[in-house]
């Protein structure tokens, strides 16, 4: 073996970092890619599931619509309970090997990983979105109804924008969880950060040092994400003060004259 190998912890860290930098970067990139895309896909699934679950069944609706809604809602509940109630690692195994053995679909491990993270996150997001929707007070929905708005319009213009703002912290939670939990995808050989660490550690048997580096990389990613999300929240909240609109008066008066008097 190379006699120039470092001997101390603080010697090994830069050595390993330098030696495996491309692998760590690639692993981190894959981890980040799968978590972000998986969370976004999960968010879309969750939005759809959450919206469907909160469609009110009205007495006046026709029986076909009622039956369809009931069946869809039950299926969604089964989906949510199944994917929240089993470990993601097991889901990854089932999806990856199940598709291969039963349906002869040979997904790449990346695609299988992305699929698993998306539907797993979707199950959590469905509940998050439902919670966000029911947290918006009934009064605003009633006011929208009283104006004559349809359920769809009320959701789109009033409830969802507020629900979305309220669930951003929870979306952030999911994203951070995903950044960490994609490590279980190493079980189906997705070359993400954890697997990169695993390969790197075995060459020199420096487990502690390699996982220390991996740990810092994970932490850097999660901290960055939580800061970015906090910034997004602040942007969505808008300015905390408002300006009195005196200068609009003349313009509006002119508009009024044009429209109503002429």
């Amino acid at each position: 073996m190379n006699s120039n190998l470092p001997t101390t912890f603080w010697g090994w860290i830069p050595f390993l970092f330098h030696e495996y930098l491309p692998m760590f970067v690639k692993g981190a990139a894959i981890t980040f890619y799968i978590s972000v895309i998986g969370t976004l896909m999960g968010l879309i699934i969750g939005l759809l599931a959450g919206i469907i679950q909160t469609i009110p069944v009205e007495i006046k609706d026709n029986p076909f619509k009622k039956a369809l809604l009931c069946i869809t809602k039950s299926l969604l509940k089964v989906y949510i309970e199944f994917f929240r109630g089993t470990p993601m690692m097991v889901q990854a195994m089932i999806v990856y090997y199940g598709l291969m053995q039963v349906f002869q679909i040979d997904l790449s491990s990346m695609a299988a990983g992305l699929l698993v993270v998306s539907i797993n996150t979707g199950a959590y997001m469905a509940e998050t979105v439902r919670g966000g929707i029911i947290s918006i007070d009934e009064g605003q929905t009633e006011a929208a109804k009283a104006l004559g708005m349809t359920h769809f319009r009320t959701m789109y213009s009033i409830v969802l924008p507020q629900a979305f703002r309220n669930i951003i912290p929870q979306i952030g939670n999911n994203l951070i969880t995903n950044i960490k939990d994609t490590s279980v995808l190493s079980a189906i050989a997705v070359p993400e950060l954890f697997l990169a660490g695993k390969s790197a550690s075995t060459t020199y048997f420096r487990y502690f040092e390699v996982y220390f580096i991996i740990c810092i990389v994970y932490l850097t990613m999660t901290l960055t994400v939580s800061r970015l999300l906090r910034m997004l929240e602040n942007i969505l909240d808008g300015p905390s003060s408002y300006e009195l609109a005196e200068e609009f008066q003349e313009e509006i008066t002119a508009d009024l004259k044009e429209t109503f008097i002429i």
Partner: protein
Amino acid sequence: METNTILEINHLVKSFGDNEVLKDIDFSTKKGDVICIIGSSGSGKSTLLRCINMLESPTSGEILHKGNNINETALKLNEYRSKVGMVFQSFNLFNNMTVLENCMIGVTTVRKKDRVYARIVAMRYLKKVGMAAYINAKPHQLSGGQKQRVAIARALAMEPEMILFDEPTSALDPEMVGEVLTVMKTLAKEGMTMIVVTHEMAFARDVSTRVVFMDNGLIAEEGPPEQIFATPQNDRTKEFLARFISS
């Protein structure tokens, strides 16, 4: 003679489970009426108002809007609701929108007018309620009285045939009650058809054209305010008003 009738309610019954909140209500509204519904808490006033625009669906009975039953299809119901404004006790402004957007959203999405028109209408009514300067504010930045005035402007921007007020001043500080009542008085004077559920007896006495006293799910007595306040016939009415007059 029927042409002026906006709303006609026949044999309206509303139960929540075994609890019959409204028992056989007959009621009608003509154009220009300012009807105040008074009565103690739990007498069914708010439920009646909420049944009128179907926020509660009646257990039985019919609601006719200019002779048409409103309960037939969802489309008709929304069209009807767009003509009957509602102002709530808890304001219920849309928190994700500015004051101006609150007043425009119904005009653009329900009345299907363009944004320029919506903005002009919204400004006209915001001016009327004295809130034109606050168009850029969000609801949480306003006081209760200001919120309620915006809510009134939002209802007015739909240019409705009638507005329902569900205890519009009950959630307000005493000093803000006045500003909202002033706006409502102006509307009444201008001939807006209004049904007001209220505990403001002075408003009922001075502004309404008809007072309805509800007791235990029934209309116990109704008539012009002078008659109800000066010479009530029903014992429950007398009892209820005695507390008001003595205070």
